[in-house]
């Protein structure tokens, strides 16, 4: 069931669980409202000969949809995730090794791309892979009355005229990645990027509390 939100300017409730899997070096299940994704990270580990890069680690992403075989859309998805992760990882610290990120869709209830990006970031945090900075993704939709809805559900996404996903970093709040569908004006784009930028703070806070909770167990 969808938890009602007080307004469209709020993210859905976020939750995460670390360490559900025993084999990976880092893993997390992220819930963002009803949307949920499990991500596992292996690395830096051994790399296949033909994928070896001499001066940095090879970052691989695999996206597994809930059902069916991955197609073109999933490839694009994988590539977006990989390019995003490549940017914030300190891949140069581990030359000739591979960092693989496996993303498994559990449930898509809207804002799926942002949930995947956030789960990748948390899984890499869990694995303690060296990173330049953190990223937080926020999706928003522009509905037919030109209102901005943060973190839309599937139904809201379908009814809207545009859906925009932004990935922000925590260094100086620049935009790392953008992915959009539908058409919109420059003004709307700016409004959305501002709203999402503010909302991304909540995601970074969520990262902090999650990691603090995880580490408090250890001490």
């Amino acid at each position, binding site marked *: 069931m969808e938890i009602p939100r007080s307004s469209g300017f709020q993210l859905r409730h976020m939750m995460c669980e670390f360490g559900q899997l025993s084999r990976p070096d880092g893993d997390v299940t992220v819930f963002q409202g009803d949307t949920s994704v499990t991500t596992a990270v292996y690395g830096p580990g051994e790399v296949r000969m033909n994928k070896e890069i001499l001066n940095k680690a090879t970052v691989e992403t695999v996206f597994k949809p809930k059902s069916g075989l991955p197609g*073109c859309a999933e490839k*694009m998805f994988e590539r977006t995730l990989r*390019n995003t992760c490549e940017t914030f990882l300190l891949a140069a610290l581990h030359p000739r090794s591979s960092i693989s990120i496996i993303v498994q869709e559990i449930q898509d209830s809207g804002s799926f791309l942002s949930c995947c990006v956030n789960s990748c970031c948390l899984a890499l945090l869990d694995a303690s892979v060296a990173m330049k900075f953190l990223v937080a993704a926020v999706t928003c939709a522009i509905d037919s009355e030109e209102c901005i809805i943060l973190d839309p559900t599937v139904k809201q996404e379908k009814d809207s005229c545009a859906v925009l996903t932004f990935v922000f970093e925590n260094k100086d709040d620049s935009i790392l990645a953008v992915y959009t569908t539908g*058409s919109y004006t420059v003004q709307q784009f700016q409004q959305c990027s501002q709203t999402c930028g503010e909302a991304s703070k909540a995601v970074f806070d969520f990262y902090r509390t999650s990691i603090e909770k995880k580490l408090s167990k250890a001490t």
Partner: protein
Amino acid sequence: MADDFKYGPHEKDVRPDGRELGEFRRTVLNIGCITTAEGSALVKLGNTTIMCGIKAELAAPKPAEPDRGFIVPNVQLTPLCSPHFRPGPPSEQAQVMSQFIAEVIKNSGCVDCQNLCVVPGKLVWVLHCDLMCLDYDGNVYDTAVLALLAAFRNTRLPHVEEKEEVPEVTMDKTCSLIVSSQPVSSTFSIFDDRILFVDPTVEEEGLATGMVTVVTVGNKLCMVHKPGGSPLKSEQLLTCFDRAFDRSKEVLRLIEETILSVER
């Protein structure tokens, strides 16, 4: 080293081929060059060459959407265009590009699938948009979107009449495909995390630390695609949008001129 050499010219706002940072390469457009296809276009952006052919086929619609036709884009990056590509099934990049083109068509609404309906529930058009890269010298996204749009503008669908449940195609009577909006793509590269420049060549793509593709349609944006890479401030994105709108005017003028010259 190539990196060091490149660093110098870019620092002074001049690129290895003499272009300024905001300058596109020379764009050459040829429309209707494949006579066997319903629509076609050949685009050259500097050395990058993409051929687009549109074949129309009749098919039964999906039961859920009885009045909608299909548009199937397919991008081919063969070893012909660059040694980087291997023969065999489509590479990841080709698949990503096909998906990109499909999303541009969907987001811009340039061809409405409802206009492809012949007999609701029975017969619709399937447009196979085959984009073949002949020479890969960077910025294939912009070239592909331009080739696609020009080919759509060139497409004429044969008239179909249904006589006693049997469709009859008459090639003498054709009508133009309705193109309701015109998407134009502009790609920007980021160099050294701060310098933005348009229309990268393959060499520049290799050195770039990030890319942004902006697709405009009319006075709106229909796609801002930035898959990772160096972070940008929103002001930097705004300058990209401004340049993209300017570029769209240039490109649309070029298409109109070419169509006129072909008709003459």
